[in-house]
């Protein structure tokens, strides 16, 4: 994309800025859609309707929310560490935005085709932790601090099973680049990693149960990494008011909101790249049958977004199913269950890939 823009514009700097700004074009509409979807899903799962009166069936609800948040007073309380308090939401957003640089939206568009793609994503999400800690500490509010510390502890702990599962996937595919990983799962859905990858052999059948286990482990720990229910300890409103964003109002709060939803899509996209074929269509392309090569990248973007949004939907589904876990349960799940299973999974997949 960047090279294309350089050819088009002729100026490296402008082209770089434009290609860096491109994910915003995706994130903002996604967040507007995602928040509405969350409220609609929540509503219908509780036998109610969700937003109905702002636009047709409430489709403009999030737009209204956004404009309202813009108008709200920006409160910076007195005892607050102003410099970092103002900076923290942008750091959190920057962390989740940076992830989008490595996500392959289609075979033609990927922000930066880094060879270390997936490794880079894990590394960059560390910025989010730092931003959350910053927000919690500088708010000078005990609830914020509790939320931030919980969030940091949780994310740091759950990074381990995530990394282990990613490691086993890296062993299987032999690459760290997300684009390559997606390319390996091309064509039809039985070539997806969750069905044992593209090669037809005995190992493919052997791999399937462990791939499913890996998917479950990865999905659970990624839920915890983006602080979603049942792992939403950091925001636990019944005990911690609002967690690390208790003191934020108006546009700064909306940055946190944006970052949260951007993160949700990012991990869902990661799940789809690792296990569900990334941007590849499960049933073949319309562009191929019609003979229109140019259509394929757009179809790929559609499939990528659709898979991502499906997993975001599953996150919401889980949110309205499960109650919040306690802190000790959270740590038990991570250290006593997810990590041993992830290790075992890693070992078995390693052995299977060797034979």
């Amino acid at each position: 994309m960047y090279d294309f823009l350089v050819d088009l514009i002729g100026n490296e700097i402008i082209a770089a800025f434009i290609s860096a700004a491109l994910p915003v074009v995706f994130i903002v509409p996604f967040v507007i859609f995602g928040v509405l979807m969350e409220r609609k899903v929540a509503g219908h799962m509780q036998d109610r309707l969700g937003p109905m009166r702002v636009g047709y069936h409430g489709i403009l609800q999030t737009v209204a929310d956004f404009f309202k948040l813009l108008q709200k007073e920006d409160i910076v309380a007195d005892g607050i560490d102003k410099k970092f308090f103002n900076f923290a939401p942008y750091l959190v957003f920057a962390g989740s935005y940076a992830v989008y640089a490595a996500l392959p939206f289609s075979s033609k568009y990927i922000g930066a085709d880094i060879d270390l793609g997936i490794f880079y994503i894990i590394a960059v999400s560390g910025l989010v932790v730092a931003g959350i800690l910053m927000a919690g500490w500088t708010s000078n509010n005990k609830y914020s601090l509790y939320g931030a510390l919980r969030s940091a502890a949780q994310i740091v702990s759950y990074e381990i099973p995530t990394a282990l599962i990613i490691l086993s996937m890296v062993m299987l595919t032999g690459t760290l680049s997300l684009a390559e990983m997606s390319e390996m799962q091309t064509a039809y859905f039985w070539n997806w990693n969750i069905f044992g990858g593209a090669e037809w052999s005995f190992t493919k059948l052997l791999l399937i149960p462990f791939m499913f286990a890996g998917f479950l482990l990865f999905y659970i720990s990624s839920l915890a990494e983006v602080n979603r229910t049942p792992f939403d300890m950091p925001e636990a409103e019944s005990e911690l008011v609002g967690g690390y964003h208790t003191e934020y109002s108006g546009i700064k709060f909306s940055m946190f909101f944006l970052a949260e939803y951007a993160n949700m899509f990012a991990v869902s996209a990661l799940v789809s790249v690792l296990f569900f074929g990334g941007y590849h269509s499960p049933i073949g392309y319309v562009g191929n049958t019609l003979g229109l090569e140019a259509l394929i990248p757009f179809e790929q973007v559609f499939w990528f977004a659709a898979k991502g949004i499906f997993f975001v939907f599953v996150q919401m589904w889980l949110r309205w199913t499960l109650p919040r876990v306690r802190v000790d349960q959270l740590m038990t799940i991570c250290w006593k269950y997810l990590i041993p299973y992830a290790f075992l999974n890693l070992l078995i997949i390693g052995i299977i890939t060797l034979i």
Partner: protein
Amino acid sequence: MELYDLIFYFFAIVTVVSAFMVVTSKNIVHAGFNLLFTFFGVAGIYVLLGADFIAVVQLLVYVGGILILLLFGIMLTNKITSVELRTGTAHIIPAVIGVGIFWGALTAIVAFKTDWVEVNTASTESTTIIGLGNLLLTDYVLIFELLGILLLVALIGAASFARREIEELKD
């Protein structure tokens, strides 16, 4: 000015300014947060040097691990009651002298003693992990394994320190 230079100067300024802030800041938490930007800037410079793996590890280990641990340490320390955490700088003059001598020696060696090798700015390899992996598992495998054992020992030691004795609980 090329894009490359622009990015380099950006990261260089971020690194130097935030490192200076780390040293001079009287507020420990501020120093910790400024350290984040130093790490980030250094990682950026690694990327520009073509050492992508090192850069990512820098982010992963230092920002995601060590810095968080550091901040945890600060925030969970007992005597903290407010955001304003003060720390005194005790011996400024000896510190400046010591750092000055060290820095002078370092720059002198870098400037006069090092054999600089001229290479093209653009690195030919797209990634360094293949080479790194090969080296780690062939030439440096013994050191790699020893380091692993050392870390394991440290981990077990830490766990045994942190463990509460059951007898203590009974009292």
